[in-house]
């Protein structure tokens, strides 16, 4: 699905990612954990194509394509989906119109016809249920006036409609109470198939009780310093990040 090799990236001349290596295969769920400032959000931004970041070294191959060569919209059309940590409010653009435009542009990219209005509405209805999103929210402007939980649910709702190959959930658990967390996690789990993959980026182990990862990676100072199975997350929860910091601090990496 995606192979990241020796990825270096900086912002305003400051290097944040300092040689990431990661391979995610179809059907897998990977969790990337790490303390604040370790580069978690930078990694998701770089993969989604945010232009503020400069990739200085390395490569990312996504289903045989050089991902870094693609524009953000083409990455999305190829099947990358970033669930934002801070979903953007866009007053005046209705959620429905936004999703319809997105879906149709993705379909056009794949050489498919526009989705008939009837089918689109049926799709919306079906996916709304999946994340228990109030129908009223779907008709409102994108994220405008949504609560934190509603915004995150809306991200998963969009993911459900667009059916990406690789979903990157960037701190999707932040700002969620336990009920919202469960709804969001349920949505993600239901969308999981053997053909798609998920990268869950999180600071806390909490989310991983609900979305159980196949692999856990610990990111620290712009590198993956440790990888393991789901038990690694529990270990981290027990010992905290200080242990990691102590272990890798002096290595100056």
């Amino acid at each position, binding site marked *: 699905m995606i192979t990241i090799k020796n990825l270096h990236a900086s912002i305003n001349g400051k290097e944040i990612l300092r040689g990431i290596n990661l391979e995610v295969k179809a059907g897998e769920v990977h969790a990337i954990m790490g303390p604040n400032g370790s580069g978690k959000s930078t990694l998701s931004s770089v993969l989604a*194509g945010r232009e503020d970041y400069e990739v200085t070294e390395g490569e990312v191959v996504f289903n045989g394509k050089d991902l870094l060569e693609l524009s953000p919209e083409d990455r999305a059309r190829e099947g990358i989906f970033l669930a934002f940590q801070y979903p953007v409010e*866009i007053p005046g653009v209705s959620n429905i119109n936004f999703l319809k435009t997105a879906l149709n542009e993705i379909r056009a990219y794949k050489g498919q016809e526009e989705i008939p209005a009837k089918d689109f509405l049926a799709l919306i209805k079906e996916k709304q249920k999946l994340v228990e999103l109030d129908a009223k929210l779907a008709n409102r402007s994108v994220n405008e006036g949504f609560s934190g939980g509603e915004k995150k649910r809306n991200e998963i709702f969009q993911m459900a409609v*667009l059916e990406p190959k690789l979903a990157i959930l960037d701190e999707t658990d932040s700002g969620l109470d336990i009920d919202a967390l469960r709804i969001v996690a349920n949505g993600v789990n239901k969308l999981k198939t053997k053909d798609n993959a998920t990268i869950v980026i999180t600071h806390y182990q909490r989310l991983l009780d609900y979305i159980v990862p196949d692999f856990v990676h610990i990111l620290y100072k712009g590198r993956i310093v440790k990888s393991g199975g789901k038990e690694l997350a529990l270990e981290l929860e027990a010992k905290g990040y200080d242990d990691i910091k102590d272990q890798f601090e002096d290595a100056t990496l």
Partner: protein
Amino acid sequence: MIDTKTNITQTIIDSLSTSGNKVSFMPDASVLDAVRFLEEKGIPNAKHEEYKYCNLEAVFRRDFKSISNQFSSQLGVAGHKLAGCINLVLVNGTYHAELSDKAEGITVSTLHEADKAILAKHLSRYADVNADAFVAMNTAFCSSGLFIHIRGVAEKPIHILNVISANGISLVNPRQLIIAEKNAEATLIESFISEGDAPAVFHNHLTEIFVDENAKIKSYRLQQEGSKVTQVNTTEAIVKRYGNYTTNTFTFGGSLVRNNLHVVLADDHGEAHLNGLFVTGGSQLVDNHTLVDHQKPNCESNELYKGIAKDKSTGIFNGKIFVRKDAQKTNAYQSSKNILLSDDATINTKPQLEIYADDVKCSHGTSTGKVDENALFYLKARGIGDASARRLLLQAFAQELIEKVEVEVLQERILYLFEKAL
């Protein structure tokens, strides 16, 4: 040294004096004052505070040295009429009853034919010839214009279709007087189009509108003239007790458009709502100058102007709110928001509050920026291409103004023109 300022103004005055209609309905004193003001002050240039970014003298010197006022007889107005409205057609400032719909429920005529007593009471009473060169020019040289008298509730919207149809360099001075009697209600739409192949047209449009006690006027201005047309559009509105004047200005066409929109809340509990949206491209210039004069207590005014400037175009907003000493309990709000789509485009905004009363609520805000990069990335991250993402965001930006249009056929037309202008 030759005083070029006097020269171009004098050339215009001479040209209009010989070719123009005799303005028999205008009070002599107004005409005399108007000509004198024009001769003394001249057409304003960039040194004039109110025309700092909108140098009309330069436009006159460049394009209007000789005025032929050659009008074209080719007219294609049908496509510009609005279904379900009373369409009134003015060609080069002259009302054409034969091209217009039957005015049911309202009185419509040229100013020549209008009730003399009403003219004496209202005409040239609100537009001050000693305040502005274009008011003076229109007052001295206006065409037979249009008179609309509204009593009671006008069922259908009134659509005044202003067609400029010229083949030679032309200068027209259409004049309108609109009277809404006590408790009257009407929707007014003014649209501006042009045809013909004139190298330059100056359209100096002036409307005086009187909104009497408890009367409600909702008005729309749709400016879509061709690239050879310069328009100065002056509106002087007077709002009496509990009267309500709402006006929405949409500007997409014209080479230079200057709107002077003045509303006087002349008695207590009056309301004024001034909204505007423009999209400029090429070397277009659109200048919205508004003045809301709160003269009496308990009045309210709201103002929202938005602009999108592309290419090398210029957008200007200058909004003054004047709260007089008597105007206690005034609520006055003003906001101007703009988006620049190119590094060569310019926006000038200047909100001005002058408050002489102490118990008032007033606020103003202005912002000018580019398309929101975060929102743009969010849309792209969902597979929406750069061009459609920008379009979506610009539509969203304009949405709240387009939504204010309560006449469906007009809203559709505005939406179409807006999208075309992007």
